[in-house]
């Protein structure tokens, strides 16, 4: 028994060191966002952001561009997630509950698409969106995100649906429910954890996506947060204070969501891999 525990110090010290190394950048980001611009060029910066200033936050919100980027990111991620869950549920239901010839093959192809390097389709996507006049628009981002996010959603939901016993479907059918009603009233509530996991992963995936957002948008009309942060430029030099403030603004809500739902996220991440 005592052997299995191991010396606590042997565990605690390296763990503390790891956590310190991993968490320090966050502290520094926060501190830097609160440090006045003049202090940015101080060759020996103080550890604490004293004097404190909110000038960077005021700047990024005052100039309006960043708020638009936030809105764009929210809309794109939100709509993609909702559509992904809707279309994914329908597809997962068909694949697990209806007789579909080649269902396993379809799922395999979907998964392969999900693993594709996005750069592979960037050229054609650019030309396609240009032809459809969807360049630099929000739908122009939503549709490719949907295409690349559906595979994972379908995979997770198919896994969740497969666990629902057949008797429940039969009972619903006996009660006179159409397949769609069965889906809505029986499957979706029971698969709620899977829906949550798929939704979260899709949302975070869209929020963080960079390549398509960079290539398929041209200005703040449709630009999302990652692109805005990467392209932040100042008149004389890179406005690090504002960039750090922007990062804090973006990270705090994400951190809150992650804290609240970390168990779901881990379930979603490990579901397909370890079981499949």
């Amino acid at each position, binding site marked *: 028994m005592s052997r299995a525990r191991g010396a606590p110090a042997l565990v605690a010290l390296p763990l503390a060191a790891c956590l310190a190394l991993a968490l320090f950048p966050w502290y520094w980001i926060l501190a830097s966002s609160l440090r006045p611009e003049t202090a940015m060029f101080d060759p020996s910066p103080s550890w604490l952001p004293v004097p404190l200033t909110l000038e960077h936050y005021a700047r990024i919100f005052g100039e309006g561009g960043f708020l638009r980027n936030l809105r764009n990111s929210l809309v794109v991620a939100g709509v993609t997630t909702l559509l992904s869950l809707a279309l994914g549920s329908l*597809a997962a239901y*068909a694949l697990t509950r209806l007789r579909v010839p080649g269902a396993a093959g379809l799922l395999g192809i979907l998964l392969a698409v999900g693993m594709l*390097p996005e750069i592979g389709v*960037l050229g054609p996507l650019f030309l396609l969106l240009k032809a459809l006049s969807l360049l630099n628009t929000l739908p122009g981002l939503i549709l*490719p995100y949907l295409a690349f996010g559906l595979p994972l959603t379908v995979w997770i939901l198919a896994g969740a649906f497969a666990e629902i016993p057949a008797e429940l479907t039969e009972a619903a059918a006996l009660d006179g429910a159409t397949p769609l009603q069965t889906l809505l009233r029986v499957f979706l509530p029971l698969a709620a954890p899977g829906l949550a996991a798929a939704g979260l992963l899709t949302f975070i995936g869209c929020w963080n996506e*960079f*390549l398509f957002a960079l290539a398929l948008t041209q200005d703040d009309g449709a630009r999302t947060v990652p692109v805005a942060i*990467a392209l932040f430029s100042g008149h004389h030099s890179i406005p690090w204070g504002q960039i750090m403030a922007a990062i804090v603004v973006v990270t705090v809500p*994400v951190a809150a969501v992650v804290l609240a739902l970390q168990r779901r996220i881990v379930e979603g991440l490990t579901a397909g891999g370890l079981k499949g």
Partner: protein
Amino acid sequence: MGDGRRAAERRLAVCLLAPALGVVGIFALGPIGWAAWLSLRSMHLALPWLPKGFVGLANYAGLLKAPRLWAALGHTLLFVGASVGTELLLGLAAALLLRRLTIGQGFARTSLLLPWAMPTVVAAVVWRYLTNPTSGIIVVLLRGLGQGDDATVLLARPATAWAVILLTDIWKTTPFIVLILLAGLQAIPPVLYEAAAADGATAWARFRRITLPLLRPAILVALVFRTLQAVKVFDHIYALTGGGPGTATETVAFLAYDALLRELDFGFGSAAAFLVLGLSAGLAALYARLLGASRGGLA
């Protein structure tokens, strides 16, 4: 059940599958075929007076003759090897440590998920800030350790630029690996360890004979995901070095992006992008074979 019912079921299945498969087909699968077609043509969007026509494998020949491509390929493979290898080792060590944690698992998990939940390009911007020659904290530390001014312009020299790129990736991605491995570790029944300890097995023997074999599926999953992700590496390069100094930190994905959207050479760029596709597909096939073999071994 009657044929009529079966036909109705099939119609329903088609209706339910059509939207999802339609979107995927139009915006993901179709474009792959189009990219293949484009790679066989000459198409310069910036020079529209040039003829657009079928050029066969000329783009690919051009690619394979370009030292820049081979350099980018080498960089990519080195990055994949170094990042995945380091992250697996560190991740395993951290997961083994975290397994012992009895309190604060939620906090630990959140701290681990936070880098994962942040956009990669933002992580790269953060590390660009941390290593900037004027006030970056890393640079301040280096100066404190006695490094001269030359040594502190980290992103201007290939070796140190790659170090920063790798560090960014390790900081961002190791937590994800820790989570996967931790889940795998927690699935190992403790009774196995107790039995082995009762038999007098040392900690190392317990690790080698129980932990590693039972962790193999999780390790493979982490390996496959990370490798396929690492091959696509782009965000770090864009935000940290822009491929520089010169082309010393270019990867194949970056090269393809440059050709496509900076030089607007859609023929050559599509060929380069297709190369990345081929690389990913090859690695995926390799892993599929490895996974199949391991599955067969355990059966």
